[in-house]
């Protein structure tokens, strides 16, 4: 008997060793496969915007100016920025970029307290530069012009004053520069100047208000009508106002909508563009029931009819894509890791095809855009690890090839290890979310138990029972019960997760012959776990 027992045990041990060896062998193969695919995957993936190029760094600048300027002509892409590390010692720098290389770099004004750079180009290839300069002796508005290739320039002061001046903006039409700014003479008023080949030919004051008129923007249409919009800070808040110059006279300002002090403080301005319906304006403001800036858009017809401002997207610093056949916007949006740069098309009162152009975890801000040969070239600032800020650019002319792995959010350098990591982390997180939904499971389970008392429902097939449990649980989540849900990733992914959880629960439970409370509880938990697992996948990829 004893011998028989020992013999039996030795057989069992031998079997155990074989199973262990088999498991070890399988694990070794799995680990070799995983490790052979790469040294290691990152714990998040940069989801690249499809149809867009690689992001290229261009040059280092500062953030002291509210914006940098970019324009394009046959000579290349021209940039005007204020560079430096101290706001009283900034260099006004012009750069000509060709094939992502800086071909010309000229410091037009060195070591000054400078602000509001503007760069305009004419059809002959001339460059027109305007900026504001402050000094203890007074404040000046400056003008400079030069050609390509650069052979030299001379700076002119076209307006000198002891008044506070700020927010210079301009628009170039041929050799004429249309300039607007805000000047404090008693109260802040909006002023307008016209400079023809360096000569001041007109100087006018647009506003006559006891409120603060600041942040003007200007655009000129094909008929030569000058359109100006600005922000007026009143006791009741900030208003966006608009006026145009008809027969050398400024029309009565029209109120377009509400602005925001927050946007003024952050250096925001009003973007202007010409459309078939007149002039479109985009700016940032706080919605009535919110405390975060949204991009708003309104249009003014040539007859002065104003459309109701529409909140388009969370963000600020909107720029229109001037010259594009369709109304398009680029703006500084709010993303998971801070500010990001977004692009969208404006159609029938809303933005469509909204794309985040900035990938990764580095905040990107102050976008500028040019429309060139039917394509978009978008530039923005990103902070450097050392110090300073770098201008980066992306375009949709030379799209980056995206592998299938990258397309689905998996690191192409180590796909298997990333999938394995994603699987493990998602299943762990799904378990946590399932526990967070215990209340929903209890309420849903009770409701299902009540329905199940009826024979009509009790005798239904398993697939129906699972679908019913899924529907009850999704509805129960809206009840005031403590619960947790993954981020919403669109209706398609939600639907896919819902259906996959039902199918998965059915596949696992289809061979269970017993039907009772325990099986029903298992179905409830299993469906919830699978639903959370599938719903969490994109969230875990982006984390």
């Amino acid at each position, binding site marked *: 008997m004893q011998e028989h027992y020992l013999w039996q045990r030795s057989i069992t041990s031998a079997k155990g060793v074989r199973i262990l060896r088999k498991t070890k062998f399988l694990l070794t193969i799995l680990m070799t496969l995983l490790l052979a695919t790469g040294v290691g995957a990152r714990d998040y993936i940069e989801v690249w915007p499809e149809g867009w190029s690689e992001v290229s760094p261009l040059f280092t600048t500062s953030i002291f100016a509210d914006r940098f300027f970019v324009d394009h002509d046959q000579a290349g892409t021209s940039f005007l920025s204020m560079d430096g590390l101290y706001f009283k010692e900034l260099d006004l720098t012009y750069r000509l970029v060709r094939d992502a290389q800086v071909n010309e770099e000229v410091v037009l004004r060195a070591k000054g307290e400078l602000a509001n750079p503007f760069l305009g180009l004419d059809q002959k290839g001339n460059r027109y530069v305007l900026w504001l300069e402050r000094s203890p002796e007074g404040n000046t508005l400056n003008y400079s012009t030069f050609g390509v290739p650069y052979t030299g320039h001379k700076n002119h002061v076209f307006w000198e004053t002891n008044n506070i001046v700020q927010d210079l903006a301009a628009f170039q039409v041929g050799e004429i520069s249309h300039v607007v700014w805000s000047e404090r003479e008693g109260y802040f008023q909006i002023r307008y100047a016209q400079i023809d080949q360096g000569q001041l030919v007109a100087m006018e004051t647009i506003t006559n208000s006891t409120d603060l008129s600041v942040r003007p923007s200007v655009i000129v249409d094909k008929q030569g009508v000058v359109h100006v919009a600005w922000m007026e800070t009143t006791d009741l808040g900030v208003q966006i106002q608009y006026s145009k110059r008809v027969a050398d006279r400024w029309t009565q300002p029209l109120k377009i909508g509400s602005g925001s002090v927050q946007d003024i403080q952050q250096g925001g301005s009003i973007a202007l563009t010409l459309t078939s319906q007149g002039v479109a304006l985009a700016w940032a403001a706080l919605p009535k029931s919110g405390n975060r800036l949204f991009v708003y858009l309104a249009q003014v017809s040539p007859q002065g009819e104003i459309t109701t401002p529409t909140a388009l997207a969370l963000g600020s610093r909107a720029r229109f894509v001037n010259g594009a056949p369709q109304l398009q916007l680029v703006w500084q949006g709010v993303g998971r890791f801070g500010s990001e740069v977004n692009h969208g098309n404006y159609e029938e009162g809303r933005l469509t095809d909204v794309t985040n152009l900035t990938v990764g975890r580095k905040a990107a801000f102050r976008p500028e855009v040019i429309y060139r040969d039917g394509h978009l070239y978008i530039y923005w600032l990103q902070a450097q690890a050392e110090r300073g800020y770098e201008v980066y650019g992306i375009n949709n002319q030379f799209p980056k090839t995206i592998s299938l792995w990258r397309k689905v*959010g998996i690191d192409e350098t180590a796909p298997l290890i990333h999938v394995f990591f994603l699987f493990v982390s998602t299943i762990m997180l799904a378990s946590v979310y399932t526990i967070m939904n215990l209340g929903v499971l209890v309420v849903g389970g009770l409701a299902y138990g009540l329905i199940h008392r009826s024979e009509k429902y009790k005798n239904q097939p398993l697939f129906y029972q699972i679908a*019913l449990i899924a529907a009850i649980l999704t509805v129960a989540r809206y009840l005031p019960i403590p619960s947790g849900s993954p*981020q919403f*990733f669109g209706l398609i992914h939600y639907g896919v997760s819902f259906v*996959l959880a039902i199918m998965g629960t059915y596949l696992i439970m289809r061979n269970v012959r017993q039907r009772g409370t325990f099986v029903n509880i298992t179905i409830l938990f299993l469906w919830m776990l*699978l639903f959370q*697992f599938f719903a969490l*996948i994109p969230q875990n990829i982006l984390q």
Partner: protein
Amino acid sequence: MKTQTWKTVGTILLVFFGGLALVFASFALTGFPFPSETIPNLIWVELVLLVVLLGIPLFR
């Protein structure tokens, strides 16, 4: 019994990995989804689905 256990483990793995593959396929076909605000009318869609499911046995 042992075969049944392996079958169950296989089914569970198939459900998780197969589901993962199908989710990836949906990303490949429709583009990678980005976080968005929940659709306010979604609750009505889910309520309608529940009502439809509850109604099926009554009309069978």
